[in-house]
């Protein structure tokens, strides 16, 4: 039986009948972004409680990466000769993030919140972000988190997690911020019935299984970092690069790619230093003044990108820089699929004489 939750009762897992009730409560406190379907894809748009339209509950991750909220495409980072401090950021919430999005935030945090060199612009936004994640169901063809150590539902890294069930939405608390929110709005929630929790877990398991089945042909024979480290002389990169038109969409849409380009501009009465997303696929990316360029060949740049994701980043931070969201697969109109590239390397390694395998 459902009943109102009283003060002091368990608030870790609760239930709410309608999504809009939850979202309105959030929107009262802070700016809220929710999924919006445009064409075949979801992106995030500002939530407007006055519009009585049913919310697009995104069954899979949005097309656009969460990094947009934390590390915008372009921003001003310094003014000369006067200095600039990052603007105060107001608390904001994003609803509908998926586990792969949360894992991408974990990766970006490693880079931009690194103790010695903390990026103050990233840090201010990150601090103010209220994460309301949701479970995935009905994954799309490119979704492949299970290949890269992920799963279609969250276990950590969220403030609140929402699971859609046949009777309302199970809401799980994942942080102190999330707990504060639920405690403050106890009247909106009810106890989560056991039956719905079982239903949630079943849906999760089903989705996970579906993902594993979808991706079974791409299963690798060895840890992905070992495959890359033993593939430095592989021709696969050059062969695959023939499909690449250097549009750089894969790096822009990737939620973990974080390379950037600093440049200076002249304004009317000041000089500014700007920070803009960059891409290691770009020809002149690593070139120095004078023209030397260690990665003139496209295949080398593709190799570097994958090495960075699966070997270099892993070496430095202990996690891979890929969450298997599949956005790069969706974005590549010429058919390069990261799963196929890795599978080819894996196959190649399997047939390589043992003596040639370094580690």
């Amino acid at each position, binding site marked *: 039986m459902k009943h109102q939750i009283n003060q002091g009762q368990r608030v870790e897992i609760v239930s709410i009948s309608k999504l809009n009730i939850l979202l309105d409560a959030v929107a009262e406190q802070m700016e809220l972004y929710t999924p919006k379907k445009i064409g075949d894809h979801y992106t995030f748009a500002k939530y407007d409680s006055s519009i009585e339209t049913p919310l697009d509950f995104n069954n899979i991750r949005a097309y656009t990466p969460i990094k947009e909220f934390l590390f915008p495409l372009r921003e001003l980072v310094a003014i*000369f000769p006067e200095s600039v401090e990052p603007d105060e950021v107001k608390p904001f919430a994003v609803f509908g993030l998926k586990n792969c999005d949360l894992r991408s935030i974990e990766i970006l945090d490693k880079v931009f919140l690194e103790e010695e060199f903390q990026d103050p612009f990233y840090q201010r936004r990150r601090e103010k972000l209220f994460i309301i994640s949701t479970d995935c169901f009905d994954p799309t063809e490119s979704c492949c988190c299970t290949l890269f150590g992920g799963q279609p539902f969250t276990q950590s890294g969220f403030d609140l997690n929402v699971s859609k069930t046949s009777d309302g939405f199970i809401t799980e608390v994942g942080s102190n911020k999330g707990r504060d929110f639920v405690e403050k709005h106890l009247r909106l929630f009810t106890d989560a019935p056991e039956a719905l929790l079982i239903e949630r877990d079943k849906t999760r398991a089903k989705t996970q299984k579906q993902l594993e089945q979808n991706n079974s042909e791409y299963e690798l024979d060895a840890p992905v970092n070992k495959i890359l480290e033993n593939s430095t002389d592989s021709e696969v990169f050059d062969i695959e690069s023939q499909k690449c038109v250097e549009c750089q969409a894969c790096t822009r849409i990737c939620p973990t790619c974080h390379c950037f380009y600093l440049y200076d501009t002249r304004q009317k009465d000041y000089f500014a230093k700007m920070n803009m997303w960059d891409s290691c696929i770009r020809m002149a990316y690593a070139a120095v003044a004078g023209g030397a360029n260690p990665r003139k060949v496209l295949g080398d740049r593709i190799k570097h990108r994958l090495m960075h994701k699966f070997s270099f980043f892993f070496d430095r931070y202990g996690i891979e820089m890929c969450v298997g969201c599949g956005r790069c697969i969706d974005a590549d109109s010429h058919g390069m699929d990261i799963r196929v590239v890795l599978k080819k390397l894996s196959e190649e390694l399997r047939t390589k004489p043992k003596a040639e395998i370094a580690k």
Partner: protein
Amino acid sequence: MNRNLYQPINSEIIEIIDESPTIRSYVVVPEEPFKFETGQFVELTWPGVGEAPFTPSSSPANTEKMEITIMKVGHVTELLHECEKGQKIGIRGPYGNGYPIDDFIGKQVYIVGGGVGLAPIRSLFLTLIDRIEDFNKSVVCRFGARTPDDFIYKEAIFGPWQEIEGVDMKLTVDKADDNWKGNVGVVTTICNEQDVDVSNTVAVICGPPIMMKFATLKMLEFGFKPTQIYLSMEKNMSCGFGKCGHCMIGKYYVCKDGPVFTYEQIKDYPNIWD
């Protein structure tokens, strides 16, 4: 909150020294005291135009002002070559690891330098000779330039540096002029296995990539281990703190893990000299 990493320190160029037809040295005074270790680099901003990485050529002992030697090769450096003293610039840094001087203690130091690569070497040299007893009273320098006129720090190199006790200096040029009495040939032609006790020496190499490549091969030929060879790598260092990605050599961010590497660290990565 931490300091904004992207904000340069306002600085002024107070003196300009013409070193060669394409190279000038700038005496830069930052608005606040600026500490660096020899071999570390700074990002120099030309307001409104761009930023480029340079290793100061002065001794780190001076925190009031630093000297930066710059070859005309790109947008920012071209503007620098046209500017006058009094020019306002920005400085960020210092970044990277610098030369591990303490690891050199008790060893001879064999320095091979060429062209504008003598800039970081000058800072190192000034640091070493301050305490030359620590390095078995032996700093061996093998410097090269295209022509005699292309040598930077001529006044020091052709004179007082050669007189310092414990310094063994030889110079070479690719192409002599009428007054040149010294060696003609690339820098490896003045390097000799007998110059030092290889087993107890560190080699430091800085110069154009092609020179660094052949000097490294020469050192290996002399019996130096890859761990004994220190290279100042020049890549496209932009942010300075291991995030923007432009300067990566394999897993290393040159800006953060370098710019000084042992050959051992980077030898297995492709195209390190490009």
